[in-house]
């Protein structure tokens, strides 16, 4: 596979790991948060933590769109799906995300709700065209990567004059969440955590570019390295972060130059700003209410807003008390610190959202046996 295999070369990986070990100052810790779930997945899949020196730690961040969706929004979607006239179109990862009382879209589907998994927003448009007597709603979630496809779909619905189509919008933004983590990292009761630098998201950055991160680098004195998803990309990014720390530099560097530019994808950004506007606040699982972190449809597209069309009531639901997803999403705890991990909570029977999506920290740990370290630690 071109542009993938060559970035998985074992020999180069060994050399990069050696470089990291040689350059990391043993007298200090290096704590880097990889914001994006794709990176969390790659770290577990390729065992990258095993080749890093013990003083270089990766903290898994909240960049998994399925994981940060609060249970209340899932309940709202289930309520919508249970209406007989509605066909709810969703991305596959959403089917098993737990709402309140263990409810999920999958269980709603078993009870007769018409929930359909789609690969792309274009499929949702097709379903709306084929079912003119039904109300087709697209359950839109995700960061800046999935937002432009939703915008394209809404404009397509307008062009095709679809009157039976709307969107339940849950799109969120990366920079406000990063800012929230940095601002709350010194709040004692949430568990104190110091972050020395960020591995910046790959695909989000193809859209927004590297410029939005410059604020963090300056304001919080934190280096940010935008990184590709392959193991060599990630090792190079970690090395770049180590070098920045050693040289007291706080810059935004772009390791993923083959796909990311400073300005990002202008056409996609235009699509976003044409169709969406900022919400005053939006609830994130694990972070709570984050100001100006979510999007809704602009007034001019209000007829496609499912929340208005179906007069949906905002629901707020507390997470399962034993579930540590919140602390894990903030990087305060690791999956193995959760009592439910691997006992009551597994990918087959997820209690918390971090176990649902393959990009969630818990699912990544489970799938690639990272929990063995934990068992060994317990045994010793």
């Amino acid at each position: 596979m071109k542009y993938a295999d060559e970035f998985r070369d074992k020999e180069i990986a060994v050399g990069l790991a050696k470089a990291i070990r040689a350059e990391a100052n043993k007298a200090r810790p290096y704590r880097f948060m990889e914001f994006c779930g794709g990176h969390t997945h790659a770290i577990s899949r390729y065992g990258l933590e095993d080749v890093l020196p013990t003083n270089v730690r990766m903290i898994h961040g909240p960049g998994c769109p399925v994981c940060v969706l609060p249970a209340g929004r899932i309940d709202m979607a289930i309520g919508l799906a249970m209406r007989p006239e509605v066909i709810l179109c969703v991305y596959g990862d959403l089917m098993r995300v737990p709402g309140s009382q263990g409810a999920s879209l999958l269980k709603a589907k078993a009870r007769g709700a018409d929930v359909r998994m789609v690969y792309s927003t274009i499929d949702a448009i097709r379903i709306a065209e084929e079912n003119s007597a039904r109300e087709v709603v697209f359950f839109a979630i995700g960061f800046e990567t999935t937002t432009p496809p939703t915008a394209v779909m809404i404009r397509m619905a307008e062009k095709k004059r679809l009157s039976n189509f709307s969107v339940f919008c849950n799109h969120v933004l990366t920079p406000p969440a990063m800012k929230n983590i940095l601002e709350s990292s010194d709040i004692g009761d949430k568990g104190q955590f110091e972050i020395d630098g960020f591995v910046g998201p790959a695909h989000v950055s193809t859209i927004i570019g590297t410029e939005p991160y410059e604020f963090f680098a300056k304001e919080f004195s934190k280096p940010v390295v935008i990184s590709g998803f392959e193991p060599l990309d990630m090792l190079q990014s970690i090395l770049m972060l180590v070098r920045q720390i050693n040289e007291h530099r706080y810059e935004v560097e772009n390791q993923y130059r083959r796909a990311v530019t400073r300005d990002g994808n202008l056409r996609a950004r235009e699509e976003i700003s044409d169709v969406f506007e900022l919400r005053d606040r939006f609830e994130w699982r694990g972070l709570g209410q984050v100001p100006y972190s979510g999007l809704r449809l602009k007034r001019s597209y209000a007829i496609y807003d499912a929340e208005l069309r179906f007069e949906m009531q905002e629901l707020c639901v507390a997470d399962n008390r034993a579930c540590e997803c919140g602390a894990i999403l903030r990087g305060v705890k690791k999956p193995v610190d959760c009592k439910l991990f691997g006992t009551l909570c597994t990918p087959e029977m997820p209690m918390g959202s971090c176990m649902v999506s393959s990009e969630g920290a818990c699912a990544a740990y489970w799938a690639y046996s990272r929990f063995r370290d934990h068992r060994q630690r317990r045994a010793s």
Partner: protein
Amino acid sequence: MCLAIPAEVTKILPDEMAVVSMDGVSKEISIALIDDIAVGDYAIVHVGYALAKIDPEEARRTLDLLRELSTERQGAVQ
């Protein structure tokens, strides 16, 4: 959701659509978010949309740099 692999454009279709090959699997995707993409180009594809073209020149430079970084330390003390 974010796990995307590089896809090669094999055919341009009408209505801003294209056929891509992902590790041997053909898929129809939207190219509405990308300007001037051509057969033979590689793109990052996510939820059925091409998000960015992969710049072959930059990819080559990154690989060269990776090789350089990894051999700098050959023989370095573990």
